[in-house]
């Protein structure tokens, strides 16, 4: 479904991604794990059209994504929730959700999509008239994910959805992601919170200094000693 081939991203002299290749199958949830500055966001940003790579290819259902402007990707069923959320902080929750249904593909299902989003995040229903920028970080993250779902996506790209959130809110967000996952949506998630991510993902890629250094099924990676050392905080790993 999604094929990233030999992707290279450079910011001036700094090489953020060096010939990175990944594939994501339809209905899969794939995690990209790595430390700060490893190139995770550059990878996801390239798929979502926010970052313009220097070389390589991104193909999605026979479509050359690199030839499309960012705003057209949503129309093709690709929704990005970027780092920092990218919501409209000056507009209300319901306006944010309404804007999520901007693409023509989403107009027909607006009502049922909104119902699903509000069922997933009941808080958004209570706060629908609140200005999004005045909400807590976790609630804003819900607005961002809810808005992405309003566009009736086939591929959801999530960039660090748990960044800067209180642990209890992180649990809430991951519980919602686990539910989203059961709808058959294809998800690529970039995270530093490797433990929670591996618990819900199918597969994961490990990224270090702009290169893919490992990959495999989430269940295998969770018990891989090297992964445990690098990403899961050593012996603190829980037994599952």
């Amino acid at each position, binding site marked *: 479904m999604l094929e990233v081939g030999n992707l290279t991203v450079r910011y001036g002299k700094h090489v953020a991604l060096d010939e990175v290749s990944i594939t994501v199958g339809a209905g899969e949830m794939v995690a990209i794990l790595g430390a700060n500055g490893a190139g995770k966001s550059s990878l996801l940003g390239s798929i979502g*059209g926010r970052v313009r790579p220097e070389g390589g290819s991104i193909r999605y259902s026979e479509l050359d994504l690199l030839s499309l*402007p*960012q*705003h*057209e*990707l*949503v*129309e093709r069923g690709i*929704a*990005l929730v*970027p780092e920092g959320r*990218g*919501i*409209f*902080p*000056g*507009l209300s929750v319901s*306006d944010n959700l*309404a*804007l*999520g249904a*901007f*693409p023509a593909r989403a107009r027909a299902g607006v009502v049922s999509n909104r119902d699903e989003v509000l069922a997933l995040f009941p808080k958004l229903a209570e706060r629908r008239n609140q200005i999004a920028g005045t909400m807590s970080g976790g609630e804003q993250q819900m607005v961002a994910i809810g*808005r*992405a779902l309003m*566009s009736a996506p086939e591929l959801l790209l999530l960039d660090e959805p748990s960044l800067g959130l209180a642990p209890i809110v992180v649990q809430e967000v991951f519980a919602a992601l686990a539910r989203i996952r059961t709808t058959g949506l294809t998800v690529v998630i970039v995270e530093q919170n490797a433990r929670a991510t591996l618990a819900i993902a199918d597969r994961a890629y490990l990224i270090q200094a702009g290169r893919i250094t490992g990959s495999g099924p989430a269940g295998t990676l969770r018990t891989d000693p090297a992964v445990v050392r690098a990403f899961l905080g050593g012996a603190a790993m829980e037994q599952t």
Partner: protein
Amino acid sequence: MLLTTLVLGLVLGGTYALLALGLTLQYGIARIMNLAYGEITLLAAFILVFLFQGLGIPPLAALVLIAPAGYGLGWLLYTVMMQPLVARSGSSGRLDVDSILATFGLLFLIQGVLLVTFGANFTSISYLDRGINILGVSVALNRLIAFAICVVVGTVLVLVLARTRWGLNLRAVAQTPASAPLVGIDVNRVARQGFALGTALAAVGGASIAMYQTFSATDGVVFTMKALVIVIMGGVGNVGGALLAGLALGLVETFVATAIDPGLTLAATFAIFLGVLLWRPQGLFGKG
């Protein structure tokens, strides 16, 4: 005396508010500070005079033609002139300076065309200038019509922005352009629509000025300046603020003209402008 000032001031302020709305939309949505705004206003004023005197089209009917023509002109100006600047500036913030320089040039271009086409004389039309009694104050009917146009257009605009899908898209781009592509909005397209809408408002403002006021081809700068003062008083990009500040400026000017000296109206305008810039640069109605 006070009532006269109030009625005449509000009527004048209505036109100012309408003019300022267009300028604030252009800057708020397209991020272009259009210094040729007043010239576009004048262009519409001259066209109204031509349609009325030359072709015998009644001013209100002419207005219906001028408004969409203004939208079309704005669309064309954005596509031909502004889009290259937008594309070049990227996210560097150079657009502010570049658009001021480019529209400063456009100002003289349009002014030259107006001078060659319509001459340097003062122009006015005689249209419904009989007095109507409003609360004991005699106001010319043409002024009242111009005021009614401002009220109707202003109300429709506020409703469109607040209630419609299109208005929501415009507000989204005005407030957070970086987030707009994430929901599939083509920022450039919406910016072009915003610029065109602002140009249409400039045209409607100019056409309604021509119904009651004498003007000449070199008056554009004054319109731009007043609109700019109102936009900054109201808070840049703030539609409600521009409406209120426009009415306020009309009142102040009329008060200064009747109570002190008509020659001081422009001085009073700029005194307010300086005061706002010094003490409330975010505008009288802005946050913070």
